[in-house]
């Protein structure tokens, strides 16, 4: 079993932020235009009838990007509970399944 890591993990706060902003814009644009397409082209009902769905989508997109960034930062132990674990050394046998017959 290999217990050394000779490859550096490429994640960084800057990259996470970039992914969150771009991802949120792309996904919510897809949902907004997809819904517009279904309503106006497939069903044949005019939508939206006011600016509120667009304003709500823009606000939600910004909120989601910020929330996702903070979520990822916590998950990746960049801040939050990641440092709150004790690291007591205990030797155990880790059970691995035997290699499959090919």
């Amino acid at each position, binding site marked *: *079993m*290999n*217990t*050394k*890591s*000779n*490859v*550096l*993990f*490429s*994640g960084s706060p800057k990259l*996470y932020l970039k*992914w*969150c902003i771009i*991802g949120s814009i792309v*996904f919510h644009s*897809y*949902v907004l235009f*997809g*819904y517009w397409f*279904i*309503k106006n082209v*497939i*069903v044949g*009902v005019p939508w939206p009838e006011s600016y509120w769905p667009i304003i709500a989508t823009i606000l939600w997109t910004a909120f*989601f990007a910020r*929330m*996702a960034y903070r*979520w*990822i930062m916590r*998950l*990746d*132990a*960049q801040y939050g*509970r*990641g*440092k709150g*674990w004790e*690291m007591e*050394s205990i030797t155990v046998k*880790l059970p*691995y*399944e035997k*290699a*499959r017959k090919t």
Partner: protein
Amino acid sequence: MLENVRVFLAEYYIYLKFIHLMAVMVWVWSTSVAYAFYLVPVFKAWRRNPDDGEVIAMRNWVMERFDQGASYEHTAFPIVMITGPLLYWVGGFDMGLGWLSLKLLIVVGLFLPIEVMDYYLSHFGGSKQHFRERGDWQGYEVAIHRHWWFLLLTSPAIMMSAMFVLFLAITKPF
């Protein structure tokens, strides 16, 4: 012919719905405890201590167990994807329903690509067990990193969207 099948299945609509909901529950929740209470703490420890051999050994083990544990989720997902369209067809739904349109957009545009990637990472080319069995430790490390990237980026989106889709399906608000 197809209309006869639809009429026949319509009698079993409620049973199809039961299977669909069961599969959705398994898909959404089956990996949640393993993820939140086993995988994530170990990966946080690794990110804080990237050169600690004991942490790396535990990280590798927990990742492989998680790969295998995802088989419940990945058995349920095809059932969801088969019974969902069946319910749509048999139930006589159409895209005029706002909640359904929004739900389907999220399923097709978010859940489907994420699950395809997840199958690859957990059971096919990205499976850590395969790299270990080949003795390819460089590839193993890259595969672990790739999977962690995947989990980091998809966790907020999948959790929020899954809850939203459940909300839409149950309340049918518009």
